C-alpha cells in the first residue's frame, strides 16, 4: 500500500529536506522502518536505542493517534496519511 508520511519541520533536515515521503507499507511500523532505512539519520530522532518510539514523538494515521489504535501494528490503507508530530516548545 502506498502511504504518505508527513515529515515535521524539525525532522526535515534528516529526511532529505522533504515535506512528505511516500512509502509502501501495510502497517505503521513498516512505514516507519521503510522511512528510517531510507534516511538513517531519522532513526535516532524517532526511536530509542531499544527501538521504541520516543515519548516526545507521536504518530498519527490520518487524525488518530496510534497509541489508541494498535500502535506500530496499526494497519494502513492505500492513500492513508501518516503524520509524525514531535513536541516543539518555541514561543518567544
Amino acid at each position, binding site marked *: 500500500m502506498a502511504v504518505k508520511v508527513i515529515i515535521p519541520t*524539525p525532522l526535515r533536515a*534528516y529526511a532529505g529536506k522533504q515535506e512528505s515521503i511516500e512509502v509502501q507499507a501495510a502497517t505503521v511500523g513498516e512505514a516507519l522502518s521503510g522511512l528510517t532505512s531510507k534516511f538513517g539519520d531519522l532513526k535516532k530522532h524517532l526511536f530509542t536505542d531499544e527501538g521504541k518510539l520516543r515519548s516526545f514523538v507521536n504518530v*498519527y494515521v490520518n*487524525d488518530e*493517534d496510534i497509541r489508541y489504535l494498535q500502535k506500530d501494528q496499526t494497519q494502513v490503507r492505500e492513500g492513508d496519511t501518516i503524520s509524525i508530530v514531535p*513536541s516543539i*516548545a*518555541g*514561543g518567544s
Partner: protein
Amino acid sequence: MPTKTKTVTASGAENAASLSKEEVLRYSRHLIMPEVGMEGQLKLKQAKVMCIGAGGLGAPLGLYLAAAGVGRIGLIDFDAVDFTNLQRQVLFGTSDVGQPKISAAADRLRNLNPEIQIDTFEAHLTSENALDILKDYDIVVDGTDNFPTRYLVNDACVLLGKPNVYGSIFRFEGQVTVFGYPGGPCYRCLYPEPPPPGLVPSCAEGGVLGVLPGIVGTIQACETLKLIIGKGEPLIGRLLLFDALGMKFRELKLRKNPECPVCGEHRTITKLIDYAEFCGIRGEEAPSTVTNIPEMTPTELKTRLDRGDDLFILDVREPHEYQICNLQGHLIPLGELSRRVHELDSSREIVAHCRSGKRSAEAVDFLRKAGFRKVWNLKGGILAWSDDVDPSVPKY
C-alpha cells in the same frame, strides 16, 4: 427628572456588572454581534487571564485580549527587550530595547485599553511561585519558549483545575490546543516526556518566521475569548497544526490518557516537581551536553593566526549562517560532519566553531571519538569572536 446616568470611572474594573458609556463605545463592534453582545462583553470584563511569557506568542495575545476588554490580564516574564525581539514581538518598539518586557508590555496594553487591569510579574515562573501566581486567574495561556516551563504550566493548571490555552512554534510550524479543561486531555497526555536537551533547537537556535507567532498567538487569543464567552467549539481534544510555508491547517484528535501521571486514574504527580531536572537540564539555557572538550579562546586563536600557525578553521554552522558572517573557515554543517569527515586532515590542528560554541563542541566531541587528536572548540563561537577580537563581525 433626568434619568440617572452611570458614573464613568477611570477604571471600568470598578464596576464589573455593567459597562460605562465609554466602554459601550469601545466595544460596540462586539456588542452589536449576538454571539458576544452585552452578556459576552460583561463576561470578558469579569474574566481574569494569565499570560505566561511576553514574547512572540505573548505579544499578539496580550494585544488582542486587552483590546477585547478582558478585565484583568496577568503578564509574567523576566526578560528585557532586545533588538532581535523586534522582528516578531509586536508589543515592543525600538525605544523599548533594554527595558524590562513586563513594564514595556504593560505600558503598551494600558495605552491600548485603560479600562482594564494589568497585573505584572517580573519573574521566572517556578515550582515555588506558580500555584500562588496562577490561582487568581480563570484561564492560563502558555506562550513560553522552553520545555521545563511548559510542563510546569501544565501541571500547575491540572492541579488548579484551570484551562491552559497552549501554543508552540518552530520555524514556520505551529501547534495549538486547549489543555486542562475538565474531562479533557493535558500536555502530558499528548507528550509524556520532553525531548532530551539539545535534540530540538529553540527559536534562538533554529530561527522563526516573524509572523508565525503572530498567527499562533492570535489563535490562542481567539480560543481564550471563546472559552470566556462560552461560544463556538473550543480546541479541546483537538490539536491544530499549522504550516505557514504550505499554508495548511490540519487537525488531529487528542485523547485523555488514562495512564497520565498528572491527570489520569492513578496519579503519581500530585504536586509540582523540579522541572529542570525532569527535562534533564539545569536552568533555562541548557549548556552543551558534551563535556571535557579542549577549547581555544578567540584571543588565543587570533594570536596564533597572526603568528602564522597552520590552523584549519572548521565552521559547522549552516550555509545560510555562513552568508551572515564567517571566519573564512571550511564549512561542514554539523549534521553532515559524519559523512564528510574525509574532507578533514587529522594531522593538522583544527579549530571548530559555530555561532555560540555549542554545536562546535559536539563536532569536536565527534571528531575526537573519530580519532582526531589536535582539535579545539572556539570558546563562545563567532559571537565571542565579535566581542573579543573583531567587532565588525555582526552578531545574530
